[in-house]
């Protein structure tokens, strides 16, 4: 082929692709311009459908704004969000967990939304101070908590009834008794086929018990304190359930799936799992606060936080603020997807109090703890994972496992501190 013709074809192809990439905007009929807002989150379950419904309602009520939602599983989401944000291609509004906020804040991607908090917009006193603390950095509030999702107890109502319980166990004695009573060898092969209790996500199960035994993540100076005596006692308790064969062995792989299949009567998990249970027609369930297994009540929690990208033009910023206010004010709808609203006023409504599981979980708000506010949370949590795994597999004592976890976690914290020192 003639080289000039080839070159011409190549250039023509590039121009053609460029026109296609431009969405034919210059060729199509002009239409009323909307403020387009991209909204990213990790709501891939039933909660995503609820959120989509809320967005549709908002878009209909605000014809000048078009919110489009993109959702992906949380692990992938965080990777993509960070890379997109670094490159300046991040969404205008996004949801992150309060526990991951320190890294986004450190990266400078989240805008100050303090202006959203006011008597006529989002009254500060309508949020629990502890929850608001999680999104506050100095005098800046960098996100609006949409919900609170504590860990709690789910139980199979029918199984509990057979053991003479018409409610959830509330203390250690009741819990252990039920775990023991409901463990059954149905087929007579000397191996239990049904369990009273099973661990779900080990790390969360352990962290939920930490405050009950007086444990903590960090000391007063922000150093790792994973080998705190309270944490050791909490992990020893979990380990004892394994030793006493009150939970399936680690290789069994039951847990949430086992609970859904009625092979496990009780599990600890987050309120967000309610969406999954609602889809089951044949499971009669109860949900509420964790039983008090230690010296005091306690549980682990986190929040979905609505964040705004730093540096938005006014037009977009206004649209985003309107949307945030809409979501927050209508969070009773969000609660129906299996969440506890962050707004006190919403939680006080009869509508919310008629949601038995969500309302039950919300009773833990006064004594819940959030994961530590550190930049190295993923590495820190991995150490907790490993410690719990070693103990549950009987490969280490709680004290030894947590000591190693503490030493490693401290290394990550020290490294982060050293790297935060800006060189002159």
């Amino acid at each position, binding site marked *: 082929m003639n080289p000039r013709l080839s070159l011409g074809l190549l250039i023509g192809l590039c121009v053609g692709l460029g026109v296609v990439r431009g969405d034919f905007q210059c060729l199509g009929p002009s239409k009323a311009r909307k403020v387009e807002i991209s909204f990213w989150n990790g709501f891939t379950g039933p909660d995503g459908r609820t959120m989509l419904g809320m967005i549709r309602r908002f878009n209909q009520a605000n014809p000048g704004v078009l919110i489009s939602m993109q959702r992906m599983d949380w692990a992938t989401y965080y990777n993509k969000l960070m890379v997109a944000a670094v490159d300046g291609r991040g969404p205008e509004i996004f949801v992150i967990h309060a526990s991951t906020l320190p890294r986004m804040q450190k990266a400078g991607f989240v805008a100050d939304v303090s202006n959203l908090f006011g008597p006529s917009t989002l009254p500060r006193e309508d949020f629990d101070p502890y929850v608001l603390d999680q999104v506050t950095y100095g005098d800046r509030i960098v996100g609006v908590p949409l919900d609170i999702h504590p860990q709690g107890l789910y139980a199979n109502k029918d199984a509990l009834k057979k053991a003479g319980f018409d409610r959830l166990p509330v203390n250690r004695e009741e819990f252990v008794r039920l775990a023991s009573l409901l463990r059954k060898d149905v087929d007579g092969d000397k191996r239990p086929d049904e369990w009273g209790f099973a661990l779900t996500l080990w790390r969360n199960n352990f962290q939920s018990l930490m405050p009950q035994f007086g444990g903590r993540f960090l000391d007063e100076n922000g150093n790792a304190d994973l080998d705190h005596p309270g944490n050791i006692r909490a992990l020893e308790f979990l380990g004892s359930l394994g030793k006493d064969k009150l939970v399936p062995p680690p290789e069994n792989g039951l847990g949430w799936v086992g609970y859904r299949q009625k092979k496990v009567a009780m599990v600890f998990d987050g309120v967000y799992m309610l969406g999954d249970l609602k889809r089951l027609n044949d499971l009669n369930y109860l949900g509420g606060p964790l039983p008090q297994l230690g010296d005091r009540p306690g549980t682990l929690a986190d929040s979905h936080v609505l964040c705004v990208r730093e540096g938005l033009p006014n037009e977009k910023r206004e649209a985003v603020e309107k949307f945030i206010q809409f979501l927050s004010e209508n969070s009773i709808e969000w609660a129906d997807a299996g969440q506890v609203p962050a707004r006190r006023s919403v939680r006080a409504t009869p509508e919310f109090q008629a949601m038995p599981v969500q309302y039950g979980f919300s009773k833990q708000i006064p004594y819940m703890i959030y994961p530590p506010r550190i930049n190295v949370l993923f590495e820190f949590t991995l150490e907790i994972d490993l410690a719990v795994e070693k103990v549950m597999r009987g490969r280490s004592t709680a004290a030894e496992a947590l000591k190693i976890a503490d030493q490693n976690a401290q290394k990550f914290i020290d490294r982060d501190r050293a790297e935060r020192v*800006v060189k002159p």
Partner: protein
Amino acid sequence: MTYLQERKLTGWLYLAPFVVAFTTFVIVPIGVSLWLSVMRFDLTSRESVSFVGLQNFQDALKDDYFWQAMKATLWFAVLMIPSMLILALSLALGMHAMNRGRNVVRAMLFLPGMFNVAVAGILWQWFYNGEFGLFNFWLKGAGLAPQPWLSDRGFAMPSIVLMSLWWSVGGTSVVILAALQQIPKQIFEAATLDGAAYFPLLSKITLPLLRPVLMFVVVTNTIGAFQVFGQPFLLTRGGPELSTRGVVQYIYETAFNNYRMGYGAAMSWLLFLVIALFALVQYRFLRRGHQ
């Protein structure tokens, strides 16, 4: 423009799309990763970006998790490469000996390799599931105890290797089969007339003549084994107790979960050196044997 100039220009025009793509997606990323490996580059802190020389490499060599991941990778390679070689060779020999139905068998063997690793991973997650998985269903049916395929430290890596073999043995066996079909039949006929039995034929004729292909298979499978990521990531997420977390997964987590791009890039270069070293040693070793 002279004829020669036109020819030259035509050549470059044909090459241009590839050169642009290769430069953009291979040369530039290699350069960037080399630059990153000597930098402190935390995605969450632009202020921290600074030149650190070989510090990232030194840190990696002192990092217990790096060595643990390297050990897991080596364990995978040790289990995978010989199994792959023996199985693929056996299958190729079997297919070669078939008079009918060879194409059907070859297609069936090749089929799993057409699946994306995510599809294969999800399928095998179900096979291995402790409660309602296919393998334990069969074991229970045979009156045997169910096995912790993925949740026991001793079982997890062999289980991953088994899935990897199922997924990739077809491609390798087809390559070996193609090489077998290239060996002139007259050689076998002459040896048979001289009274050679099957095993002497295999060891004295088939294997020596297959050596170049086997060399290729071993080297490419070694490179692939050291880069293992999808299978353990989908089946075990690196557990139990990080026993199946390979180097690539550790690099991925370092760079994209912990946002330490510089450190991740340095570990990538260390992995590259290890792979290059192994490939070179194998190549030399097999080549020397051939000569």
